[in-house]
C-alpha cells in the first residue's frame, strides 16, 4: 500500500504527533509531581484524564515521589514505545512515502503483550512490572507507523476531494 504525497504534510503530522506524545508523557509524570507538592485538586484532574484509558491500580504503577504515575507500567511502556517509534519513523520510513506495516509484523509485536495480558486476566501468572513495561514498549513502537501515515493519507484524500469538487464547479474553459 504505497502512495506518493507531499513530504511536508507527513513531516508536519509527524512533528505534531511527536509534540502531542511528549505532552501526553509529561502529563503522566505531572500527576504524582503535583500530588507530592500538595496540589491534590490539580493532581486529581490529571489522574482523571487518564482514567478512561488505564485502570491506574497503584501497585501496578511506577512510583514518583511516593505517588503512583497516572498510568500503569504497561501503559507507560506503550507510550514510551510510541515516543521511540516516532524517533525511529523518519529513519525507517522517511517522509516521502506512505506505507503501513505488514499484518504479520503487527501480530509479531502484539503477541507478547496479548499473551502477558491474557495470562494475567485468567490468573495463570502475574508478570513483574518490568515485563509489562517491556511488552508495552514493543507494541507501542509500531503504532506511529500506522498513526502518521493514516493521518497524512486522510489529509491527502481530503485535499484531492476538495480539488475535484472545485474542478467540477469551475466553468469550462472556452
Amino acid at each position, binding site marked *: *500500500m504505497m*502512495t506518493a504525497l507531499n513530504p511536508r504534510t507527513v513531516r508536519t503530522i509527524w512533528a505534531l504527533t511527536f509534540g502531542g506524545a511528549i505532552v501526553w508523557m509529561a502529563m503522566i509524570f505531572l500527576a504524582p509531581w503535583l*500530588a507530592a507538592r500538595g496540589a*491534590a485538586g490539580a493532581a*486529581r484532574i490529571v*489522574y*482523571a*484524564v487518564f482514567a*478512561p*484509558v*488505564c*485502570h491506574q491500580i*497503584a*501497585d501496578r504503577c511506577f512510583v514518583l515521589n511516593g*505517588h*503512583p504515575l497516572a498510568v*500503569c507500567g*504497561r*501503559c507507560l511502556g*506503550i507510550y514510551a514505545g510510541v515516543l521511540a517509534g516516532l524517533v525511529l519513523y523518519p529513519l525507517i520510513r522517511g517522509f516521502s512515502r*506512505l506505507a*503501513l*506495516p*505488514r*499484518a504479520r509484523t*503487527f501480530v509479531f509485536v502484539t503477541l507478547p*503483550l496479548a499473551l502477558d*495480558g491474557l495470562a494475567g486476566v485468567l490468573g495463570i501468572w502475574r508478570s513483574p512490572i518490568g515485563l509489562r513495561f517491556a511488552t508495552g514498549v514493543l*507494541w507501542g513502537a509500531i*503504532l506511529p507507523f*500506522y*498513526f502518521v*501515515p*493514516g*493521518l*497524512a*493519507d*486522510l*489529509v*491527502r*484524500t*481530503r485535499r*484531492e*476531494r476538495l*480539488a*475535484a*469538487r472545485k474542478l467540477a464547479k469551475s466553468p469550462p474553459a472556452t
Partner: protein
Amino acid sequence: MDAKKPDYFRPALIAGAVAGLLSGLPLIGAGNCICCLWIVGGAAMAVKLLAAGSSTLLTAGDGAMVGALTGITAAVVDAIVSLPLRSFNLGLARRLLDKAVELGGELPSGLDDIINNSGVFSPGWFLLGLFISAAVFAVMGVLGGVIGVSLFAKKALPPAAPPQTPPGPPDAA
C-alpha cells in the same frame, strides 16, 4: 483521481455503539485498560464493515476517518451507558477496595475521597469527561481504523467487467 467517498457513518455508528456499550459495562469495560481495546477493536471492526460494503480500495485515510468517527460515537454511547450504572460501578469499586484492604493491600492516599466524590453527579464534570473521552477515543479510533485497513481492507480491486460493445448498425439486407 477517485473522488468517490465511502459511506463512513453507518459502519462507524454500528461499531461505535458496540464499542461504547462494551466500554460502559461494569468489569467488561475494563478491557479499555489494555490500550483502549474496545475502541481500537471497534474501529478495526468498522473498517471491516466499511470494506464489506464498499467496492473501492480503502486507503489509510479512510481507516483514520471511520476510526475517528467510531471513537467519538463510542465515547457518547459509553457516557450514556455509564450514567445509570454509576452507583453500581461505585459500589463495585468500593467492594474491591475493601477486599484489597482486607488482604493487607495498601491504597494510595486520597483514593477514598475520589470514590466518595465520584458519587456526586455534576453536569460540568460529565461534559468534561465526555470531551476528554471523545478526544482520547478519537485518537485511539484513528489508530484502530488504520490497523484495520492493514488487516482487513481489500488488497486489489476485482477485475473490471469487459466493456459492452454497442450493437452494430442493422443489416441493410
